[in-house]
């Protein structure tokens, strides 16, 4: 498959207001990882960044808001054209990536 063909088949969606393209069938987490958006949410208590961890729907770390619906598992939901994905922040608000981490930050 040529690059141009691939590009024409890309799926466009939105992440925190930014336009992102992914390949059809990709999960939200994988499509975001591919564009180096690794921080998917900031935790409620410690404002710590979290992202893709187990990749199979077990850990619930990759929770994002999709089209207004909170706590969707980004590793399980496939991307769709026009989908609006937002990061979750403390108290369920759409937050920005945190810089603190749990314990291991240097």
């Amino acid at each position, binding site marked *: 498959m040529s690059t141009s063909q691939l590009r024409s088949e890309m799926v466009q969606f939105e992440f925190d207001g930014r336009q992102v393209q992914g390949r059809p069938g990709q999960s939200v987490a*994988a499509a975001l990882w591919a564009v180096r958006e690794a921080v998917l949410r900031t935790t409620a208590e*410690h404002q710590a960044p*979290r992202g893709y961890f187990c990749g199979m729907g077990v850990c619930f770390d990759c929770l994002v808001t999709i089209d207004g619906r909170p706590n969707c598992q980004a590793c399980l939901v*496939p991307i769709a054209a026009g989908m609006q994905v937002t990061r979750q922040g403390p108290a369920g608000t759409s937050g920005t990536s945190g810089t603190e981490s749990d314990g291991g930050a240097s």
Partner: protein
Amino acid sequence: MSPDSAAPKPSDASRLVVVGAGPAGMATAITLAERGLKVTVVDQNPRPGGQIYRYPAVPSTKPRDPDRGGALRELLAEHSDLITVLSGHNVVGIYPERRLGLCGPEGFRILEADRLVLAPGAYEYVPPFPGWTLPGVMTPGAAQQLVKSQGVAPGRRVLLAGTGPFLLVVALALHEMSVPVVGIVDTLRRRDAFWKLPSLLADGKLLKQGLDYVNGVRKAGIPLMTGHIVTRAEGRGHLEQVVVAPCDADWVPNHERSRPIVVDTLCVGYGFVPRLGLAQLAGCELTATNLPGGWIPVTDAWGQTSVPGVFTAGDGAGVAGAIVAELAGQLVGLGVAASCGAIEASEAQRSAEPIRERLHQLSRFRRGLDELGSLRKGLSQLADESTVVCRCEEIRRGEVDEAISSGSTTLRSLKMATRLGMGPCQGRMCQPACARRLYDLGLGSLEDIGWPAFRPPLVPVTVGQLAGLNDPEQEPAEAKLVEDAWDTDSAS
């Protein structure tokens, strides 16, 4: 034979349900169909295959190796007159008389079964260590998913760490897709493997496969650091480096000889934990083991659990890998067919014989591997007091230790004292490691500590879904309501 139970007297019209379409579930369904029986397979993924034989989400750019998963998928399709596959469906509850609560695209419904086979598989065991919640730290399985199914490189400098042959498998998968792998850190020391050679030699084919992986890694120029352990992950907002130290036979690191390695992705896993939620909801009796997760369902020689009519096969019944899972699925299929009266008990015995022989041979090899990978106490000492141990509820090790010194030495009491395990993952991530920590501290046997308790819904569902409304524009408030409901539930 033993599947003579209090379960209803079956007939051709027996409603047979298999949960999980990994190697065990697929093999069970195929075996049943080969005996002319109708079976429904419920699976949460979009396509059959499970985690190990996952169907690629995006078309692969490289021709795929002939994979056993593809062959099993073809067999499922060949029997499509008898096998109904409900993909994209989660079992959220199991009610008395083998009634399953299913959540799928069409909403919630009840599926009744005369015989129920649970084949839920396993997930990776990652005990807490400083920095393990940083984005960029993931399981080897998650990295394998990215590269093999999603067509995405997990990083530009990837380190694999933990123990077991799966690290080698993932390292090679990454290398093949031109992802730079900076090394593999395994707690195992070379001499440990040497002492297990007699049992590993029990299966020459598998031993050769293992050695092929080691050779593949060597040829790829990937450094293999045996007898080492990752003690922490560090970075601001994203993983930037890990600290690696040599460790002793108990996996206790020598911090004085530790050194940093610059990476952007760490794939870490120390084996696999059987998924117990379904067996628990079905009321199956569990038994303690020394393997990750600590507990497996009690079964008879045909995979039937303590609950009549409920069977289990594959990694969810005790982790042993895909080859064993497929054979176990065949065995359970025969057991179910016999218990339905579809085949004579003597025929089931006869057909089972070569399968049991092969399983017996594999079990010696497996025991060798299990002993090599059995958890050592150094692993449960990696977290410091500020390390988050419950990723969902953000409970720190210090809070847990405080509760332990106040006398909470069971999973149940720790949960009530700290909220550990009360988030959406229901303790899948934190409780096995927490139980292990209590055990390593000498605070009781695994029986004393107890097993992680699951409650319906096994995966979060909205009130709307439960009511069969299936409204994609679900009110967030309703979703929250369900979460609160379980929290109260699980604390009771």
